[in-house]
């Protein structure tokens, strides 16, 4: 019947406790991010001083001209990177689920390499974080900090919460990769990888909303 690990316990639904819990958690996180996003949108265009996201601003006291702060090309790239990390994640899960099945050609061997895809997910996640780090430091250098105005406070808090979630996800993925390297992951670990994947995709999906609502909508 069921092999080694956990959860061959009785359950009313035939589903695993942890999968139910992660979906409940994701539902809760919807409210968390909606509160943050709502505040950002409420305060849109209400900052008394600049810099502003989409329009330039001249500081009346110093005469310094601040250009529109947001960098769409870089953020478009980071959005793409995060989306691709979801693809890598999905392939990692698939590889873990199908471990042990025959791999008939190079393509299937590549697709079935869980370590590769876990590594790629983490790498792409780190790539996203790198873009965020670059973005944040350049904003600070250009005069926008979390304290500067409503835009700074809401922007950095919203993207900061999201970035913290991504960071936690990357740590999770790297831990999973470490286990894969140490003892190998197989079908009996599929549930654990699935839960991690659900968390990761959710974090990606939140970014889809943020990218549109913060960066693209003026």
């Amino acid at each position, binding site marked *: 019947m069921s092999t080694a690990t956990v959860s061959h316990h009785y359950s009313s639904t035939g589903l695993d406790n942890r999968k139910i819990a992660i979906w409940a958690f994701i539902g809760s996180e919807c409210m968390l991010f909606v509160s943050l996003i709502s505040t950002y949108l409420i305060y849109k265009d209400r900052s008394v001083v600049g810099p502003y996201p989409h329009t330039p601003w001249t500081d009346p006291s110093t005469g310094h001209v601040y250009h529109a702060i947001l960098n769409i090309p870089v953020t478009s790239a980071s959005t793409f990177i995060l989306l691709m990390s979801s693809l890598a*994640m999905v392939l990692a899960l698939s590889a873990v689920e199908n471990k042990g099945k025959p791999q008939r050609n190079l393509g299937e061997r590549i697709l079935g390499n869980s370590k590769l895809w876990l590594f790629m997910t983490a790498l792409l996640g780190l790539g996203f974080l790198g873009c965020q780090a670059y973005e944040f430091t350049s904003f600070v250098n250009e005069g926008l900090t979390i304290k500067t105005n409503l835009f700074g406070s809401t922007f950095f808090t919203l993207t900061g919460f999201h970035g913290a979630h991504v960071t936690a996800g990357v740590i999770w993925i790297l831990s999973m990769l470490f286990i894969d390297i140490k003892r190998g992951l197989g079908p009996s670990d599929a549930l654990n990888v699935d839960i991690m*994947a659900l968390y990761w995709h959710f974090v990606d999906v939140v970014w889809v909303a943020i990218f549109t609502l913060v960066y693209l909508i003026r």
Partner: protein
Amino acid sequence: MDHSNEADVVAADEHGAGSEHTGPGWSVYWKVAVVLTLITIGEVWVYYIPAFVASRLFLPTLLTMSAVKFVIVVMFYMHLKYDHKLFRTLFTGPLIVATATLFALLFLFGHLRLGHGG
């Protein structure tokens, strides 16, 4: 004796865990990735068309595009389409409450143009 009831009952094993036998496969995954990429390119593209940005279509278009991305990631990558109905309920309930709250707040702070909020 304590397991005698449990033996008759569905035990949670890997069948519940993933969607290996009913889930999407590689072909769905890469297609979704392509769609996500194309939509993202589309979103950024229209961002750089000033006439479109100024028009009344800009907001609905962008919102629709990101909604589509949201839905396909949730349905296919998070395989909500293939999983037990319970997960769909667990997710859509909170999503409805969250979305309603978002719209209510936007209205209350005067950001929706139907009547004024404040």
